[in-house]
């Protein structure tokens, strides 16, 4: 192992020097003695699976989390970063993974948000124009952010960061809202920013291919510790993967999660025995020309048609923000259709009656489980029977014994770690909350399983568990609709891939005949 500074091979003062940073939350150590050197003119990758401590480390750097121990030096001077303003003053800026933008405000107001001093609208607008011109990030400063596409919103986010002229720019998982082309462009601009202006750029990512393509140096983190500092050019994907997971990576789902799927098509897909050319498979879920509108008359879904057969996994690929969320909401009885219809097993299902979708046999693992998947203030047991409390009741009276029995069974069967059936759900970790959702939804022997971004925020082990469950469900004859912005996940799991753009399905292909160029174009809305 070589240290980062040796790797850089220069004696100049580093932009940022972290020494022995430690942060614990209760008994969990998120960052354990982390040391790191960032240099001007370089792109530095920080690689690690979810939960490896990358985010905590970055939050320390931008003042959202205070470290328990260790020191930070910026340009050779020791500093303490107690809030985001202090970070900004030191020239540290971050482009957030989950946007820090306020929909109701205009672009310029968002860009000005979080700064100090008097407000000068004209100056902010001018600066947005300058930055836009300089980096090729043109945008209308008076547009309402809520009206922008995900790609443009990220542009605003980048401008918001660059406006303060940071000498250190952190990008936190930036590609989830971008098409492959846009991602490539973004990585180009890393180079421009770095080479032309001598800034230090940090790319936080859990995707190996991104890190290989875009960085000069890599730091690998695992379980809160730095495992290795490497020069990107001198390493390879297998080494990175081994460092990140701590063992050789062979499982297919893991490889997919790490962005290591052998993308070229042709090989027979290994999902399930029935994966091949059986056109006669009966459809369990059909959406026919579905249009749905938001409360303000905006179009959420537009003339969308889709079919999922029994035992089939259909992947919905697309850039985030193109109607995936409304699609999940529609199938959760949360958004009514304004025209078109939804059929389960050929029978019409009302989209206006609460609970009709669930009653018809549509199970959902929602994109944001806190939104409609669980009730945080109720117990684990109650969350496990939430959709059909009648199952554990006689004449409308819940039997505590049966409730507890059901909970015990599911907790055991799905390996949910909790203090017991009566623990409030909010005491569980994110991964275990997700298991509660999965357990409940599968316990009702559904006809259709909608999984929206099912592995987001999970660590590698949990991802494997989740993908296994999805495959098992399909093998049991459930029609699985996988909505994901991770293309690798879709390629890995699906029998058939449909592409979503602007609220409708713009293309479809069998996994066996997948054409990546066409897929990318469709995702960008080119063929819409």
């Amino acid at each position, binding site marked *: 192992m070589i240290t980062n500074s040796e790797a850089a091979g220069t004696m100049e003062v580093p932009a940022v020097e972290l020494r022995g940073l430690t942060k614990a*939350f*209760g008994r*969990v150590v*998120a960052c354990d003695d982390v040391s790191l050197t960032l240099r001007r003119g370089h792109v530095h990758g920080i690689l690690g699976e*979810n*939960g490896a*401590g990358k*985010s*905590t480390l970055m939050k320390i750097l931008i003042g959202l*989390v205070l470290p328990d121990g260790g020191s930070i030096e910026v340009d050779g001077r020791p500093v303490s970063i107690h809030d985001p303003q202090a970070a900004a003053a030191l020239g540290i800026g971050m482009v957030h993974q989950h946007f820090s933008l306020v929909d109701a405000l205009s672009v310029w107001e968002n860009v000005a948000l979080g700064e100090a001093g008097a407000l000068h609208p004209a100056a902010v607008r001018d600066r947005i124009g300058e930055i836009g011109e300089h980096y090729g990030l043109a945008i209308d400063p008076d547009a309402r952010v809520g009206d922008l596409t995900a790609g443009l919103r990220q542009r605003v986010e980048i401008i918001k960061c660059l406006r303060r002229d940071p000498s250190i720019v952190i990008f936190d998982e930036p590609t989830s809202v971008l098409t492959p082309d846009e991602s490539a462009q973004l990585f180009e601009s890393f180079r421009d920013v770095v080479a032309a202006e001598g800034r230090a750029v940090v790319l936080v990512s859990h995707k190996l291919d991104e890190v290989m393509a875009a960085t000069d140096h890599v730091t690998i983190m695992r379980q*809160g510790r730095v495992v290795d500092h490497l020069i990107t050019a001198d390493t390879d994907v297998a080494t990175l993967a081994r460092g990140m997971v701590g063992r050789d990576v062979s499982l297919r789902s893991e490889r997919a999660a790490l962005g290591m799927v052998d993308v070229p098509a042709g090989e027979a897909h290994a999902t399930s025995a029935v994966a091949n050319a059986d056109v006669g498979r009966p459809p369990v879920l059909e959406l026919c020309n579905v249009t749905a509108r938001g409360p303000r008359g905006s179009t959420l879904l537009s003339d969308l048609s889709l079919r999922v057969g029994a035992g089939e996994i259909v992947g919905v690929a697309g850039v985030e923000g193109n109607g995936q969320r409304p699609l999940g909401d529609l199938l*959760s*009885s*949360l958004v009514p259709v304004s025209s078109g219809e939804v059929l389960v097993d050929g029978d019409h299902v009302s989209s206006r*009656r*609460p*609970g*009709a*979708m*669930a*009653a018809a046999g549509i199970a*959902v693992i929602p994109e944001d489980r806190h*939104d*409609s*998947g*669980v*009730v*945080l*203030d*109720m117990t684990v047991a*109650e969350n496990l029977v*939430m*959709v*059909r*409390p*009648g199952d554990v*009741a006689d004449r*409308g*009276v*819940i039997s*505590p014994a049966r409730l507890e029995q059901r909970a015990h069974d599911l907790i055991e069967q799905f390996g949910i770690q909790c203090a017991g059936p009566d623990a409030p759900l*909010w*005491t569980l*970790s*994110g*991964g275990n909350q997700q298991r509660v959702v999965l357990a409940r939804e599968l316990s009702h022997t559904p006809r259709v399983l909608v999984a929206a971004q099912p592995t987001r*925020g999970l*660590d590698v082990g949990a991802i494997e568990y989740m993908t296994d469950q999805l495959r098992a469900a399909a093998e049991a004859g459930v029609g699985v609709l996988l909505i994901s912005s991770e293309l690798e996940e879709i390629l890995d799991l699906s029998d058939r891939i449909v592409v979503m753009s602007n609220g409708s399905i713009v293309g479809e292909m069998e996994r066996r005949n997948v054409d990546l160029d066409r897929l990318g174009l469709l995702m960008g809305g080119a063929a819409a």
Partner: protein
Amino acid sequence: MNARHREWVALYAGSVACALLLSALLVEATGGSWRPVLDALVDGSFRGPGRWGQTLGAAAPMLLVALGTIVSARAGLVNIGQEGQLLIGVAFAVFFGFRIGGPGPVNIVVVLIAGAVGGAIWAGVAGLLRFWRGVPEVLSTLLLVTVAGQAVAFRLKHQSLLLAPEANRGNRNQVSEQLAENSRLPNLHVFGNDVPSAAFIAVGFAVVVAFAISRTVWGFRLRMLGRNPRAARRAGVSERQYGMMALIIGGAFAGLAGAVMLAGGGFQFGNFRLVPGFSASIGWTGLLVALVAREKALAAIPVAVVFGALRTGSGFVGSTGVEGRITDVIQGLLVLALLVPPALMFVRDRRRARAASAVRT
């Protein structure tokens, strides 16, 4: 867990002590002294002959109002118009109680049901506004309190509605007829106290509400709606249906409270007549009972007794030379003090939970 328990007890004791200390300071600062005030409070509420029966009589309608509030609150609705719902309930009870008639015991039932229906209708108006017109129920229920007060005052001026015929009014000009003796809720004599049967009715309902909320599918779905409306909708809970029902039940309990005040309140509340100022802020106090009981029906029982005691005690405070309104102040400070510990614990728990899950994001 034990340390946590101790922490809770200490927090509650501390904040209640603060509230009482502040009240005592206020009494002292305005030239009174706290000891006689405390003595008067205890005499008036429990120690004096026949006083704890009175206290239970005041606590009963408060408890009923609180039960209704708890049902609405569990559905995530902020119904704060109980005072108005109670008044409309009494008005209905009087109106139908004197028109339908029937033998005494039947008439008692008529009075109670009419009261509940009146309150339910008034809360239902707020429900319609909320679920069909998008008017926040916080405001509509509140504004309807004033409207209810004026509506009842108006009806008390007209003989065709509520006003008693001239011969039965005595020397007052805005009272309803007096409820016949056989149409009143009886008192039970226990240890030299007259305990209104309304107290038993209220406790019975508290048990029913507690059971319905915690053990029935209906209550389960109601709680779900209150905690996460979107998860509830996905699971088949109609916000309109359950929300309307919760508001209507809330209003019905307030109306019922009004009816038991009429039929069993005696001298404490208008002496079996509807008079101006009949509601005597029982609606507001019942609402506070529900808040302090943290939306738990059984916990509302002791809280209602404490608030009832403050009310019956306040009548005795005047004799000490300190203004009787001090009990309103004590009550308000107590409520504020009781809000502090759970809010404090909530913030701390969430902070810990966030810390524990922060590693995973």
